[in-house]
């Protein structure tokens, strides 16, 4: 048989089969890379494109294929197999397909090697290109990424179809008869994948069973390690997902005025800034990692720049309240809800040393609704609205200092219930003495300068109650009103905070009040007969109206 084939033809045939095997492996592996393949046609023959097809050669794949072949060629009983499997990020793996290049004994002696065999091998490669996009593993391989990857393994010898599970299907790509045997290219693939999407695969355990002893029955286990079908450099994240930063908090412009010119100026600067970490926050959360404010001495209107309002999320936006040291009756309230994501630090005006001493940060007391974690801290020279979590190293680098009046503006609790229980609050000497008196409460009786609270304050208080995590809570707190920059409206003499306060407790509807209701009820009953008489007069009109509706 083989003597009929001359040596040149034999050499050519061997070469054709060898390169066909290598190209077959390239086509299969490239089809499982997860990308679309595109090669260019060239009208001028380059001489290096085997079978007149532009199939790139990935060096690693060629190397692996050559290693598997080890100088041999597919022959009867010795098939070249490419195994495609899937491996999840958890380490589970599953065989998907096995592509077999086999040779059987059926010879076609009449066939011309250099022409017909070559062209038919070329046709078979084209068929392979088409079929590799058609098996279920193709769609899986296109979606590979973080959850799973596709691996390939080349081995030479007997075909092992055990790992494909039950009911696997086979598709024959094609055959080419040669003088030494018939080359057959086929694929055996799992069919249970048909219903499996990527998502399903992660959630449900593999129905086919996890192949634990993957390489147990392999004839050449040591020579056939699995390789990923992915040659892209994965510069993607390794699975650590950072929660998206929600940029939902508007920056409230904050400026405030000192109404009485005698108010001292104080500067609060943040001593420490937290390093930016993206964190998920609710819409109500506001980062207040750093603040720097500056007041101008004896100016009726202060403007300040909130600085370093990025970084870390505050659980709540807390109004930062600073009591002017000198005159506690005119506390200032500073609301600084900030924007996440890093508002650039604005330069703060230098603190006036003398004034700074008189600054204080009063912290809120745990009144109902006004929950806050307050950590007043001060440096010698500057007041710092510090992050209460500095010591706690919590992910919430929160400026958890809410300085609210002991009875918050939007709290329904009467002032009297809140008492200055302890005098060991910092700067107790500066605590307003007359807080018990509602009349003297600047919040209740606003001074000439309009006070403003943050529109968020109410909701913030309620949020704050759920977040009282800090340890430094104080019974007394002073609220300083401030005037938001843009809320002053000449048209409407009332500012937003006042508006909110006034309408927070609207009066009851008159119709709902019992006394009035009782009265009107009696009147209604009396007037009923009259009304009925009137209606009866107009019966015809009503009927006509009803008819028009129909």
């Amino acid at each position: 048989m083989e003597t009929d084939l001359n040596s040149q033809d034999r050499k050519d045939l061997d070469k054709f089969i060898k390169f066909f095997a290598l190209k077959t492996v390239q086509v299969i592996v490239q089809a499982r890379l997860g990308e679309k393949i595109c090669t260019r046609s060239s009208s001028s023959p380059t001489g290096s494109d085997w079978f007149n097809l532009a199939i790139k050669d990935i060096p690693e794949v060629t190397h692996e294929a050559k290693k598997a072949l080890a100088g041999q060629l597919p022959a009867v009983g010795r098939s070249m197999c490419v195994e495609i499997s899937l491996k999840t990020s958890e380490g589970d793996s599953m065989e998907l397909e096995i592509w077999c290049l086999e040779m059987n004994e059926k010879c076609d002696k009449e066939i011309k090697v250099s022409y017909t065999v070559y062209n038919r091998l070329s046709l078979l490669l084209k068929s392979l290109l088409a079929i590799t996009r058609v098996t279920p593993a193709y769609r899986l391989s296109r979606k590979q990424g973080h959850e799973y990857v596709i691996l390939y393994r080349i081995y030479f010898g007997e075909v092992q179809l055990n790992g494909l599970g039950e009911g696997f299907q086979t598709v024959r790509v094609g055959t080419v008869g040669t003088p030494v045997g018939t080359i057959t290219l086929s694929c055996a693939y799992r069919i249970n994948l048909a219903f499996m999407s990527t998502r399903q695969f992660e959630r449900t355990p593999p129905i086919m069973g996890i192949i634990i002893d993957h390489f147990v029955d392999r004839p050449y286990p040591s020579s056939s390690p699995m390789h990923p079908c992915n040659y892209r450099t994965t510069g993607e994240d390794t699975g650590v997902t950072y929660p998206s930063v929600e940029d939902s908090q508007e920056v409230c412009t904050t400026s405030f005025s000192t109404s009485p010119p005698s108010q001292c100026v104080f500067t609060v600067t943040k001593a420490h800034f937290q390093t930016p970490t993206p964190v998920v926050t609710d819409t109500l959360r506001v980062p207040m990692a750093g603040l720097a404010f500056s007041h101008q001495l004896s100016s009726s209107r202060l403007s300040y720049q909130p600085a370093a309002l990025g970084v870390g999320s505050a659980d709540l936006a807390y109004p930062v309240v600073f009591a002017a040291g000198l005159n506690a009756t005119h506390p200032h309230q500073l609301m600084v809800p900030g924007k996440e994501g890093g508002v650039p630090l604005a330069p703060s005006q230098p603190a006036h040393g003398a004034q700074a001493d008189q600054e204080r940060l009063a912290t809120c007391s745990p009144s109902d609704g006004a929950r806050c974690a307050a950590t007043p801290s001060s440096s010698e020279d500057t007041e710092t609205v510090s992050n209460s979590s500095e010591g706690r190293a919590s992910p919430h680098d929160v400026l958890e200092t809410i300085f609210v009046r002991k009875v918050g503006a939007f709290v329904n609790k009467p002032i009297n219930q809140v008492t200055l229980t302890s005098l060991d609050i910092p700067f107790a000497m500066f605590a307003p003495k007359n807080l018990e008196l509602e009349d003297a409460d600047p919040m209740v009786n606003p001074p000439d300068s309009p006070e403003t609270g943050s529109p968020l304050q109410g909701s913030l208080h309620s949020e704050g109650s759920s977040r009282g995590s800090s340890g430094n809570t104080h019974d007394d707190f002073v609220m300083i009103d401030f005037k938001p920059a843009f809320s002053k409206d000449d048209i409407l003499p009332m500012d937003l905070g006042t508006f909110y306060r006034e309408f927070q407790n609207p009066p009851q509807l008159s119709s709902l009040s019992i006394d009035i209701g009782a009265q009107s009820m009696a009147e209604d009953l009396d007037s009923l007969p009259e009304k009925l008489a009137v209606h009866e007069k107009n019966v015809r009109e009503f009927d006509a109206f009803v008819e028009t509706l129909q």
Partner: protein
Amino acid sequence: MNCRSEVLEVSVEGRQVEEALLAVLHTVLLHRSTGKFHYKKEGTYSIGTVGTQDVDCDFIDFTYVRVSSDELDRALRKVVGEFQDALRSSGGDGLGQMSLEFYQKKKSRWPFSDECIPWEVWTVKVHVVALATEQERQICREKVGEKLCEKIINIVEVMNRHEYLPKMPTQSEVDNVFDTGLRDVQPYLYKISFQITDALGTSVTTTMRRLIKDTLAL
């Protein structure tokens, strides 16, 4: 020599017609195209290289491979577009078929014109279905994708029977066998035709012809 005839049937939604037809036609032409021949002296020739590229369908969960030839792609898209328009405007049941015929030219003596002898005909019967809900469309996407996978396997099976193929021509005969008009690839001579059929399976044109003949006969 008998002409080999293969028939494929597909049921698709209106917007899937183009992609389904292109997938089938391109797969057939992938197998029936070679690189450009470059004839040298002494009757030998070398063959150019055929590149391939993957095409993802937009309306079908399917990817097919075509030869990297924009000219060929444009020619196919043009005729498929005409077919799609004809289907739409027919207003009938949405039945039509497209035929891809590979032929050889046989030169005849004057005054007879050259003969076109088909040696392989691929017919794709298209049935357009109308779907109401998005869910149905989504199912249709996947189902048509699976059906096309089966069609590709059928095509490959036929191709690999290695039945009759025209002999490789000499330089003077190459235009009788191959379409040498494209720049980068060289498919066998082919022509594409289509017809819109009504529910009975008869083409609209034949019905019209019959009607006219009948009226004239009166």
